């Protein structure tokens, strides 16, 4: 039987520490999204380039990012690179792991978005004298980002949740890390993780709502 008396008052005293952690969590997720989007656009470019080496590289990246656990990717960024003598801080390892994952998923989102844009648009651009890169940059990419905008906000939510894997590589400043630290000090597992869950929920809800507001403003036809 579950036999436990909640000490909410004591647990809530830790709230400021946990909110500091939440800020770090949002920072990591945001940074990984910005880097992830840039990389995903490059990967998409590689796949479109028609160059076999480049598109092979991009396909391999996407396959690994989408078909292995995020935990594995983050662990490899820390202990995997570590065994080759490349030592990254927990923060950097986590950021690299999530960015790698983000780029893979976003590249696939972008590919889907590209399929929704008729080929004839590129040809129309080319016939106006644009180079292939210009046609992609000025005609295709803005539409691609528009179509992929809501999936991108999903990935942002996913990035927030993935930060919780940072504890496996020694991260203790993010929301989950702070919670885990406090937990092992006080053993108030259920209160602390409930608070953490509520904070996570609030963050992801805010992201979803603001994404919808932004989309409504930006993409009115």
């Amino acid at each position, binding site marked *: 039987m579950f*036999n436990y008396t909640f000490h909410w008052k004591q647990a809530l005293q830790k709230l400021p520490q946990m909110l500091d952690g939440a800020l770090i969590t949002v920072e990591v997720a945001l940074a990984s999204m910005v880097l992830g989007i840039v990389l995903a656009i490059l990967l998409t470019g590689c796949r479109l380039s028609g160059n076999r080496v480049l598109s092979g590289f991009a396909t391999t990246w996407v396959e690994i990012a989408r078909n292995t656990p995020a935990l594995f990717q983050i662990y490899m960024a*820390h*202990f995997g690179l570590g065994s080759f003598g490349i030592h990254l801080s927990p923060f950097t390892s986590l950021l690299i792991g999530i960015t790698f994952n983000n780029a893979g998923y976003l590249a696939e989102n972008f590919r889907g978005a590209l399929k929704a844009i008729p080929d004839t648009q590129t040809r129309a651009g080319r016939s106006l004298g644009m180079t292939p890169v210009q046609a992609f940059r000025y005609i295709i990419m803005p539409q691609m980002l528009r179509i992929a905008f809501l999936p991108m906000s999903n990935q942002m939510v996913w990035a927030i949740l993935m930060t919780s894997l940072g504890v496996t590589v020694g991260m203790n400043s993010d929301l989950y890390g702070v919670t*885990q*630290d406090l937990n*092992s000090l*006080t053993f108030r*597992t259920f209160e602390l993780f409930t608070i953490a869950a509520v904070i996570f929920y609030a963050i992801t809800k805010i992201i979803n709502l603001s994404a919808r507001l932004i989309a409504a403003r930006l993409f009115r036809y």
Partner: protein
Amino acid sequence: MNKAFLVGAALAASGFFSAAQADQLDDIISAGTLRCAVVLDFPPMGMRDGDNNPIGFDVDYCNDLAKVLGVTAEIVETTFPERIPALMSGKVDIAVASTSDTLERAKTVGFSVPYYAFENSVVENEKAGLSSWEDMKGKTVGATAGTYEAIWLENQVKAWGTGTFRPYQSQADVFLALSQGQLDATVATTDVANANVKSGNFAGLKIVDKVPMVPDYVALITRRDEYGMINFMNLFINQQVRTGRYAELYKKWIGDGAPADLTVHGVYR
């Protein structure tokens, strides 16, 4: 009227059942199984042998306790952070998991008297070239998150005001990071450090120096209100020492020398 009746009935029922309820000790005896949470990446206290069976000092303590209770022991592997959820959700009855008996934690779980006491040592990556524990100042150090030595080390890093502290989730990850050179040094219980250095699983580790901290007394834990069980565990620990079993298991798992003293001079417990 209905509501008042229901509330009254519920109160009466809860009073009635709690008076008649068997405590945990009864439950374990009648179930015929003692489920112990043991951390199995913490040699020589808990580990796995070549056939993947749990072995170690903590495993033997669980088996001994089950034997005197007349029940079978069931070892449930947990990590350090998972001990408490496992205990509170009833997945295990007790934890024999080298749990340091801090007052902060005693607000949540019930501790027996200490069944073991660790000394702690600095272990370094040979390349770091430390010669005493104070040389850790300014280095990148780490330990297993939430353990007694991790709490000490983190506070020490804060007191020095220089260097970095990193907690990892398991003892194995700490030694992995140390042998890769991601950490310059760690503080680990001397027995665990010895066992890991000897195991040959981690290259380039060296035990440097003892750390001047109060011995890390560890106790058996169960739910805070299970006095019957806590009393039984206290007597069990006393009997283990009295009968020489404690010394025997010390010799078996840790090695020669006098087993750690479990009493504190000048005060009752």
